[in-house]
């Protein structure tokens, strides 16, 4: 095409451009036609093709032929158009992006649902659990359930009671310390599965100062350690061990029975 620079591919497309614009359904073809449309050469080609097509249309079709034009029943049904559109790269990319956003949103919602007051402290104490040795604790061999009185009598910690689900377990030792936020934390080491218990003040509402309650047991895990937390009378109890949720679940389900 003189006066217009077309790539080799565009020349190929122009030379085979359909006669009617309605047959142009390809972006590359449309772009090539847009560039070539103003050239005399293309105008001559178009006029030439249209004149021949008009001559072809003038060919009379015998009646017995036009009566037998294949009906739709002879052609298998077309695949729904949406299936074809679904394979378009732009559609696929959008669908993948939406799926990722949806997955992230669902994860965030699930995380939010599982979140509970005092979770941050519980996570910190899981780190403490992973770095504690039994020799760091004062040796006390008793039932865990008996330690509530001990904490109250010796350290004036009210309601630092081990829940009945874990009350029967034998202890090896315990200690009371202040965590980095100055909260009094009781730590207990038990014989079974080298489990550790933590008792710490429940998170409080900044305005009212009341403990923020939550019901039931809540699981959390971090770096191979798993904890299960319950709040009672403004004090949180956490049982922690190196393992998974399934290792702690039997103690909780036992209490439900």
């Amino acid at each position, binding site marked *: 095409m003189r006066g217009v620079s077309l790539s080799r591919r565009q020349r190929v497309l122009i030379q*085979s451009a359909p*006669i009617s614009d309605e047959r142009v359904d*390809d972006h590359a073809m449309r772009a090539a036609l847009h560039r070539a449309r103003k050239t005399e050469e293309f105008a001559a080609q178009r006029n*030439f*093709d249209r004149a021949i097509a008009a*001559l*072809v249309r003038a060919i009379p079709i015998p009646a017995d*032929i036009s009566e037998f034009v*294949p009906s739709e029943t*002879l052609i298998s049904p077309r695949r729904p158009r949406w299936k074809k559109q679904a394979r378009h790269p732009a559609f696929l990319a959008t669908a993948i992006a939406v799926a990722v956003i949806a997955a992230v949103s669902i994860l965030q919602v699930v995380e939010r649902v599982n979140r509970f007051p005092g979770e941050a402290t519980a996570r910190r104490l899981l780190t403490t659990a992973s770095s504690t040795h039994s020799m760091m604790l004062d040796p006390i061999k008793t039932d865990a359930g008996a330690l509530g009185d001990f904490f109250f009598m010796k350290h004036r910690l009210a309601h630092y009671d081990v829940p009945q689900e874990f009350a029967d377990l034998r202890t090896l030792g315990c200690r009371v310390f202040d965590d980095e936020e100055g909260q009094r934390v009781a730590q207990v080491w038990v014989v079974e599965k080298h489990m550790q218990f933590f008792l710490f003040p429940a998170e409080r509402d900044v305005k009212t100062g009341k403990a923020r309650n939550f019901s039931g047991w809540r699981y959390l895990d971090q770096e191979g350690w798993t904890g299960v937390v319950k709040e009672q009378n403004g004090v949180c109890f956490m049982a922690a061990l190196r393992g998974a949720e399934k290792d702690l679940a039997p103690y909780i389900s036992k209490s439900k029975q």
Partner: protein
Amino acid sequence: MLADARKAAEVFHATLRDAAQEAAKDEPPGDRLWFFRDARWRCLEASEKGLQAEDVGLEEKEISASASSQIEKLAPHQLAIWISAAPEPQRTILALFYLDEFNLKELLSISELKPPELAKLLSEGRQQFQAWLNVTVPAVEI
């Protein structure tokens, strides 16, 4: 494709019969292009029995501005004879292209050609037809 109405009708009916038989077996043709592919091969088969066009390197002329007026002077059967005399696959391409029923993808699918081949055949076909037009319907007569 055949420049013979009787042969063309036979091809048409044979194609339709085949499609009906396939549909009766619960395996109807996949799309409308099947009919054109089938008819094309039947046309090629039918034309094999007659005289064969030779690729003799026809004269080519650039498309003239008066080409459409020259074409208007032609009778449809003259065009049909000219196209049916073209060598394969140019004959198929010209016949399908000037039906103005297909987009490029469909043309390539039926003719089983690559885009540059199809473009070359069409471009040469136009210029050869123009050269023939100049002889048959000279521009000065218009």
